[in-house]
């Protein structure tokens, strides 16, 4: 079975590479629409990695929520706010180089830390299936679950109010 696991590992690394590329693309593409799509690809990649970690439920939820809802929302926003023919404006502002340096510095430090600490090599017992997650969600984490639902409702209403068309008082300057 060795080749299969090798295949899977190669696949995972491939997926990682792809999602990194997609991430870089989503950050650097001038056209915001393509950036969103690149992000979608990156997120799918991450979902793939979740699958790699045998966390199917999370992967599927990731796909469902992120790619299904959040990216759709982003694209909606892009469509509402972006002038279709608008290509001219530069995508990046003046902080390019400096930020790159900072980012690289940060990355190198993180990598040093990661490299230096001894991480457990093997994955632990069988991955938690959906039922275990459901049990835990309804068990010890039920309070967090309720809070999250309240927050989501609040966000739902808040977003609608903010984005509503005729907001009294807030007209063009």
């Amino acid at each position, binding site marked *: 079975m060795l080749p299969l696991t090798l295949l899977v590992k190669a696949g995972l690394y491939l997926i990682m590479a792809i999602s990194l590329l997609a991430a870089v693309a989503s950050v650097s593409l001038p056209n915001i629409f393509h950036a969103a799509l690149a992000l979608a690809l990156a997120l799918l990649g991450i979902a793939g990695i979740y699958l790699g970690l045998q966390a199917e439920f999370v992967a599927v939820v990731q796909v469902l929520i992120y790619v299904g809802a959040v990216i759709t929302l982003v694209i909606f926003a892009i469509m509402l706010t972006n002038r279709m023919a608008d290509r001219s404006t530069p995508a990046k*502002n003046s*902080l390019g180089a*400096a*930020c790159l340096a*900072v*980012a690289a*510095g*940060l990355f190198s*430090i993180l990598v040093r830390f990661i490299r230096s600490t001894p991480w457990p090599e093997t994955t632990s017992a069988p991955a938690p299936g959906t039922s275990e997650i459901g049990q835990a969600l309804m068990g010890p984490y039920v309070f967090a679950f309720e809070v999250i639902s309240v927050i989501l409702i609040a966000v739902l209403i808040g977003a609608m109010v903010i984005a509503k068309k005729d907001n009294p008082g807030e007209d063009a300057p």
Partner: protein
Amino acid sequence: MSPMTPLIPFLPLAAFAVNIFFGRKLGHKAAWVSIGASTASCAIALPLIFQVAGGAHFAASARWLDLGGRGLDFGYLLDPFSATLLFVVTIVGTLIQIYSTGYMHEDPRFSRFFAYLSLFMAAMLTLVISDNYILFFMAWEIMGLCSYLLIGFWFEKDSAANAARKAFLTTRVGDVGFFLGIMTLFVAGSSLRFEDLAATVKAAHPVLPAAALLIFCGTIGKSAQFPLHVWLPDAMEGPTPVSALIHAATMVAAGVFLIVRSFVLFEAYDAAMNMVTMIGAITAFMAAFIALTATDIKKVLAYSTISQLGFMVTALGLGGLSAGTFHLMTHAFFKALLFLGAGSVIHGTGTQDIREMGGLFTKMKHTAWTFLIGSLAIAGVPPLAGFWSKDEILLTAFEAGNFPIFALLCLTAFMTSFYMFRLVFMTFFGKARNHHIHAHESPAVMTGPLWVLAIASVFVGLPGSPFFNHWFQGFLHGHGHHAVHPVNWIVVGASISAGLGGISLAAVFYLGQGGFPQKVASAFRPLYTLSTNKFWFDEIYAKFIVAPFNGVGRMLFSFDQKVIDAAVNRTGLATLNTSAFKNWFDKYVIDGFVNFTGHFTQLLSALLRLMQTGFVQHYLFLIFLSVLALMLLEMRL
């Protein structure tokens, strides 16, 4: 105790108030208001006078002011002296007010004239019935004010205004002396009441003679005696009824009345008595001498008043209290008559210069006749009042054994009758010298009072004459203890000869054709010029008193200007400079420092401000930068 007495002065005062405030509205009716008031007070006074004549004696006083331990009481005193004067003042005052309704008819300030007259009447009556020196002095001052107002009634004319001021100032000089006298009396004796005067004199305080003399200064000022007489001739600038009322009958008499009231004080000290006599004699002779050459009708009468007052003062100085008062009463009547007659002549002819008049006898019958009676009275022709009172004075002089004074008085009497008849002959007899004048008789309202006064000056002398065996003198001295002395024919003869002599000389001079006046004038040229120039008193005073006084004033003014103002200005300047410096210091040094701190913080904040660029991403970048820095720091440690 008659409660009505205070009303006597109060009614004219009320009239004064009414006239002053409602004068414009009343217009000519103002006259009736003041005449009504004076007749009312006269009606009140007459029964009281009769009671006093019957021996009654009214006095009442009320505490007015508390001065430390000693209080000041005001009240009224009705004794024979005040009764006589009350009698004179009320009657003469009312007649003159009736007369002036005619005289002042066209004057625009008609109501104000009568207001001043009423005020004067009120003051005179208060003086007459007052029982102490302070109230007396207050009335005295108000009279001074009224004389100023009335003399300067036509204040448009500069001469009237100057005359009013001159009158007021000269009388003020006298008043100062009078006031000092009152004060010394107050020092000497605690009470200022006339009745207590005898007690204070008895206490013989060393300062009393000085007090007497000082009080006599008041008389000199007010009754226009020798040194301070210059204001009376100029006072003729006022309307003639004023001169009649104030400068003939009443106000000038006040000075004499003062001596009468404080006779006890004067009697006690011979020096005072001699002083009084001397001043009186000199005034009488000097005034008469000037009157000889006076050409203005009112000036002649003014000088005659001065000389008659001199007569009264001399009488008082010689101890003739009753003689002085008797002459005061009689003189008030015929002098008022003469002045009103003169006023009627002026009213009729329009001029005051007797050289332009003449031959008015036929044109102004009533005035002429009354004027003649008045002249006869003053000259001392026997049946008339003048003779009796002057005779009394000569008698006292004779009995006092002071012959030089007696001779001087007789000469003055002679001169009086001379210049009076000179006046009469030049105005009424002979030919009209100025044909422009169309003299016309004055209306009835003026000639009426003239005739009343004429009659009075005929009969007022009788009570003091031997026929009534000197009832008036007895009345004054309170009957009983007064000795009736026999008629002294020498004095009578001297006085009659003086009077008739003067008349006949005047007739010779002015009725005859001899041109005698001019001859005598040229013969006695120096005397003549002396007389016409009124002894140059005005010039002397102007030179020796007014000028130096002004000089001193100017000197003081310049001193004030140069020294004091200079000092003040210099201090002002000094403070200005010091504040300028302080301002500079404050602005540049202290503010400088404050501004510096402000400026410095602004500079500093300008630097820090750069951080707040407003770009969200700059802040984000800053966060990550700091994270990186922290991590680096962490690693280093």
